């Protein structure tokens, strides 16, 4: 196998992404200083709705926060053990357990005490979503919680009644927000936020689509630090602008043949969240000339895709691009409900086979040579049906490697065993460690 050699260059927008992320947590922490509000909820929550309470309302999303804790291994371990002490099972969602632990220990991962939110605003598609904040509220001594059920079935079966059910809950949630915050709701801010969400989530999908290029301009390890913004506040205008900027740079990398890794011999895709404490596995793969071009997870957790006229998979056309009117509260909520129901990572909750179809699309259109599936004990939701995905990929002729671990509980990840398994997998793909 001939070893190609490509130009590489660090991402210019990298610093900006880091900055935005830090600012996000700063805003949340300092919200009260100038009379603002802070709320906590899931990364999939309809953040655009609380945005209608004012520009001084800041979120803390649970999953990214749980992952940030996972990076700090010692703190994470203390969090997990604190939760077990309270009698909660060890096999529950590890983001959730890290998050609860942070509450119980009353320590914030970025220093200081745990900054209690003024309310919880969640949505519900996996078994743990609403229960997460039900328990959080109990641990925090009664923070008011609200959650919207969005688990109405796959987008292909969407109906007016399903949308009505979600939208009715959204309308109620606005009344609830007004009641518990005593603030008057501003529909213009809602509409603005909804449009930002459409922009950012479609743009992220576009950026992922650019990674079809060979050599890949981005590797998955880098993408993790970029998609995360969308999990923090997809409705945030600054974040949407950032993705525009990022898209331009990725296009520039493609035009100038700048690759994510120097020697792109084979292209892999992964799936489910990685064990956050051990991202070095991706660096390890690079030694063999293997680049992970992404996954349904990194693409479709926030990116909104659709089948394009030419049959390929790409960013979904936004209502604005389609020239659809979004002028009233109801229009905004309906559009947002429909938009989110088409989220790739929301489809497999009803059938792994729908997920397999999307994974096969990626494998084909992104020119994937092998697949690496993380059987993630930390997330029942995204690991759902992964064994069936594996079968489908193998049936389609893709070599698949699986490894067990946990995105947020390092006690369930066996580093040496996983590394030797990857080595075996590289050998089966005919790769040797490159002498560089």
């Amino acid at each position, binding site marked *: 196998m001939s070893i190609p050699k490509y130009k590489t260059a660090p991402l210019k927008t990298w610093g900006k992404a880091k900055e935005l992320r830090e600012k996000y947590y700063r805003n949340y922490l300092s919200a009260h200083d100038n009379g603002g509000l802070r709320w906590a909820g899931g990364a999939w929550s309809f953040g655009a709705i609380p945005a209608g309470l004012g520009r001084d309302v800041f979120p803390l999303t649970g999953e990214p926060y749980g992952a940030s804790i996972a990076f700090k291994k010692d703190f994470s371990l203390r969090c997990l053990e604190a939760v077990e002490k309270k009698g909660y099972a060890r096999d529950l969602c590890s983001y959730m357990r890290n998050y609860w632990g942070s509450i119980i220990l009353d320590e914030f991962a970025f220093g200081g005490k745990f900054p209690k939110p003024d309310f919880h605003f969640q949505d519900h598609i996996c*078994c743990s979503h609403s229960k997460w904040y039900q328990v959080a509220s109990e641990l925090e001594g009664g923070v008011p919680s609200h959650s919207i059920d969005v688990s109405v079935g796959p987008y292909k079966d969407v109906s007016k009644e399903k949308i009505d059910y979600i939208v009715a809950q959204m309308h109620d949630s606005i009344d609830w927000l007004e009641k518990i915050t005593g603030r008057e709701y501003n529909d213009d801010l809602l509409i603005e936020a909804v449009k930002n969400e459409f922009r950012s989530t479609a743009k992220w999908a576009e950026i992922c689509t650019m990674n079809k290029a060979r050599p890949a301009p981005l590797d998955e390890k880098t993408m993790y630090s970029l998609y995360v913004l969308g999990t923090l506040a997809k409705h945030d205008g600054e974040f949407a602008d950032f993705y525009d900027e990022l898209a331009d740079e990725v296009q520039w990398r493609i035009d100038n043949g700048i690759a994510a890794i120097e020697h792109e011999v084979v292209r892999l895709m992964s799936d489910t969240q990685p064990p956050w404490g051990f991202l070095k596995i991706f660096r390890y793969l690079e030694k063999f000339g293997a680049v992970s071009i992404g996954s349904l997870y990194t693409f479709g957790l926030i990116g909104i895709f659709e089948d394009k006229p030419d049959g390929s998979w790409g960013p979904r056309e936004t209502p604005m691009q389609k020239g659809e009117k979004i002028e009233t509260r109801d229009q905004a909520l309906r559009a947002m409900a429909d938009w989110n129901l088409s989220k790739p990572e929301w489809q497999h909750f009803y059938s792994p086979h729908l997920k397999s179809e999307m994974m096969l699309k990626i494998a084909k259109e992104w020119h994937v040579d092998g697949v690496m599936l993380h059987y993630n004990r930390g997330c029942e939701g995204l690991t759902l049906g992964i064994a069936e995905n594996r079968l489908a990929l193998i049936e389609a002729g893709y070599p698949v490697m699986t490894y067990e671990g946990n995105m947020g509980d390092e006690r369930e990840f066996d580093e040496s065993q996983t590394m030797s398994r990857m080595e075996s997998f590289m050998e089966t793909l005919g790769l040797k460690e490159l002498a560089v």
Partner: protein
Amino acid sequence: MIDKFRQWNKDRHQYAKDWKEKTGGKVMGYFCTYVPEELLYAANILPVRILGSHEPQDVTEPHMFGMYCPFSRDCLAQGLKGRYDYLDGIMIAHSCLHIRQAYTSWDKHIPKDFSYYLPVPQNLQTPHSTPYLANEYDVFKKALEEWIGHEITEEDMERGIQTMNENRSLLRDIYKLKERENPPINGEETMQVAITQQLIDKKEHTELLKEYLQELKTTTQEYDSTRLMLLGSENDDIEFVEMVENCGSTVVIDEHCIGTRYFWNNVEEAEDQNQMTRIAKRYINKPPCPTKDWMDRNRVKHIVKLAQMYDVKGAILIQQKFCDPHELDIPAVKKALQEIGIETLFLEFDVTVPIGQFKIRVEAFLEMIDNDDLF
């Protein structure tokens, strides 16, 4: 008479095959108690709850990752082993993630001519869930009609509702007897009746139930031992209940989906509401599965009520390994029960239950809540 129920439970597959033979009707295997059997009885379809066999198995690993609950893996194993080859159709009602996989893998790998995923709201505490669910029933009804090839009339529907209501009410009557100081029926016997309720043609089950009820009302046999409550997810483990009762206890009440959660409430009469709305309300108001019990903890309140109603001395919290919804409830349930002075014992179930390891826990638990005279 209990032996008839025991036999039905043992020969569940044979019963269903004979039923098909006898009636020429269709059999529907279902995965979760949120399935509205009213519609199936209206369509003269025999609903059969798909359950596991509590044997170690090696066939599900390729289809379901081992971190999902052993019950769902055990169910899938039955299908992969061909034990349900007589089913004409399968269906599931949207509830927890785990059992969903048993359905989706079954749907792909095991032949059948009808398969249906019924959406059910997870947010039962909003009024908007009723019209949404009622509409999903309409859609489901159409699918059924297409399958069986004829319309399901209002009369059929009413018959379906009455069949279910009558059977559920009789179970309530049986449980009424368990409130007595010395109940005439123990946990094992109750479980036989409750399991078969989900396996046998309700009309037939109802007839036997009526006779059995008479027998119990006049029975002299009484159980006088420590009154226990069984709480948890799915539990059809007869061997386990026998072990618990042989240690000197009687299970007088339960809160799991092979038991009270299945039959506790009925479809109510309401002039101003159509049938689908009435049925929807029944399933929305039934004692909830933890996965649907938020933001208020209505299930915990219900459990406390039952514990007091049945004057239990202790509660055994059984949980299918990896069952997140229940893991998210257990600390709250424990707390609530301890606050009213009821001790709890937590046990984690797997496909096979290591009776030996559990026996000592149960014995020690009973020694803990009794045996004061030894000190």
